[in-house]
């Protein structure tokens, strides 16, 4: 059985940053990624990032993955990367079961940083499982990784940042966007994204939802309805829109199965997207060996996932005697960055949620 100081589960923005921080603190690291490539969902983010220079603002997400991977390649004696490796169980004797191809390997570690990200939520409406109804992330993967359009004409459900950004990416790929709808009375995403979409002539219908999809073998259209102030359908406002794709962008939910298995105490926190573990300021859960970073701590953006990854990499290493030379300053800097990323109206929501599950506030 292989033994290592720190095992990091998930090679997305949080896991990559955690690996770099842990290795530069002196710990030996194994980084696990279930996919064949590192970067997680960064590999399909063709837009330029916001935030500050430290989170690679104004760089396109697709390039950030390469920058982070290159940093790890500079430390080959400290970081071992397992691609195509899925963690399937985390046991109380600090052993992780990992599926690699058809083989199950065991990995023993002093600390685990779980950075498994999130999965896309669905939405309840009639025929919501017809082929042609795809998550917004799925549409991004199909277009930006595989170079395939999801269809000819798309209804986008959800006017948050992801819904707006993916709508713009659909236009860039030559796909018509019939409309963006959102049940909320206001647009959830940044105005800068919404303005781009509006300039391109795509209507954004707030206080609207989809009640049914129709089509024989796959989507041929959708029925929309306007909602009143109590989010109830307004009779007589139904209208049909002919589309071959309905793209669902109604948020994400932390992908936390491994934490349940490891015995972490989980709470349902709507502001954070679903069930999340309790943790302290160092991103340690109630299980001493298990740390967390990225969307699994609560749904945010890749920028905060990177900072959390760095923080967990530093603190998990320090807890087993690998203290970074500038530990105090580095940790302070991470917390400052997180504070700044969570400023503003969207952050208010996240801070509320975080306060409910973080000890030592």
């Amino acid at each position: 059985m292989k033994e290592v100081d720190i095992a990091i589960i998930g090679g997305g923005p949080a896991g990559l940053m955690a690996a770099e921080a842990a290795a530069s603190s002196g710990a030996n690291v194994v980084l696990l990624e279930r996919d064949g490539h590192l970067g997680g969902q960064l590999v399909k983010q063709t837009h330029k990032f916001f935030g500050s220079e430290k989170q690679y603002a104004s760089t396109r997400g697709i390039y950030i993955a390469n920058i982070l991977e290159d940093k790890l390649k500079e430390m080959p004696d400290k970081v071992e990367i397992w691609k195509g490796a899925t963690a399937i169980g985390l046991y109380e004797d600090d052993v992780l079961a990992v599926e690699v191809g058809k083989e199950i390997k065991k990995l023993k570690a002093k600390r685990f940083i779980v950075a498994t990200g999130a999965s896309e939520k669905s939405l309840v409406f009639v025929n919501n499982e017809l082929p042609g109804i795809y998550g917004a992330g799925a549409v991004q993967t199909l277009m930006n990784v595989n170079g395939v359009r999801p269809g000819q004409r798309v209804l986008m459900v959800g006017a948050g940042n992801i819904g707006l950004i993916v709508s713009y990416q659909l236009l860039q790929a030559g796909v018509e966007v019939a409309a963006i709808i959102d049940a909320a009375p206001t647009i959830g995403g940044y105005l800068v994204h919404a303005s781009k979409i509006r300039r391109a002539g795509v209507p954004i219908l707030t206080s609207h939802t989809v009640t049914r999809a129709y089509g024989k073998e796959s989507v041929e259209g959708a029925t929309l309805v306007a909602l009143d102030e109590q989010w109830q359908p307004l009779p007589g406002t139904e209208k049909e829109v002919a589309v071959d794709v309905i793209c669902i962008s109604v948020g994400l939910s932390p992908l936390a199965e491994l934490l349940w298995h490891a015995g972490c105490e989980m709470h349902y926190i709507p502001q954070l997207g679903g069930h999340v573990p309790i943790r302290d300021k160092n991103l340690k859960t109630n299980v001493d060996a298990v740390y967390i970073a990225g969307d699994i701590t609560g749904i945010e953006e890749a920028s905060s996932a990177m900072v959390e990854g760095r923080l967990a990499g530093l603190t998990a290493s320090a807890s087993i005697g690998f203290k970074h030379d500038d530990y105090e300053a580095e940790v302070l800097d991470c917390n400052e960055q997180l504070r700044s990323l969570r400023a503003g109206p969207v952050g208010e929501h996240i801070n509320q949620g975080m306060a409910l599950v973080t000890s030592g506030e």
Partner: protein
Amino acid sequence: MLRIEEHPILTFDKSKTVTFTFDGKEIEGYEGDTIASALHAAGVKVMGHHYDSGRPRGFYCAIGNCGACLMVVNGEPNIRVCVEPLVEGLVVETQSNKGDLV
């Protein structure tokens, strides 16, 4: 044709074609495709049928989370085709039952 030919930011390598079969029919994709992306590009959205209701099924998440896109690949059932790389000569079939454990 659903392949993106021109894109303001991205380019897609289509230098190596990969041939496979879907329910006996020969289909061409490219190296770098998943089975699901190659099928979708060829206009195939229905990848299976629910084992009980028989309703059509396609992919939903495209990153291996949701399990909506299970197909029979080279005789093995329950393969998530959204994360299965396309390889020359694969035999891909619609799955309409739960699949037998090998």
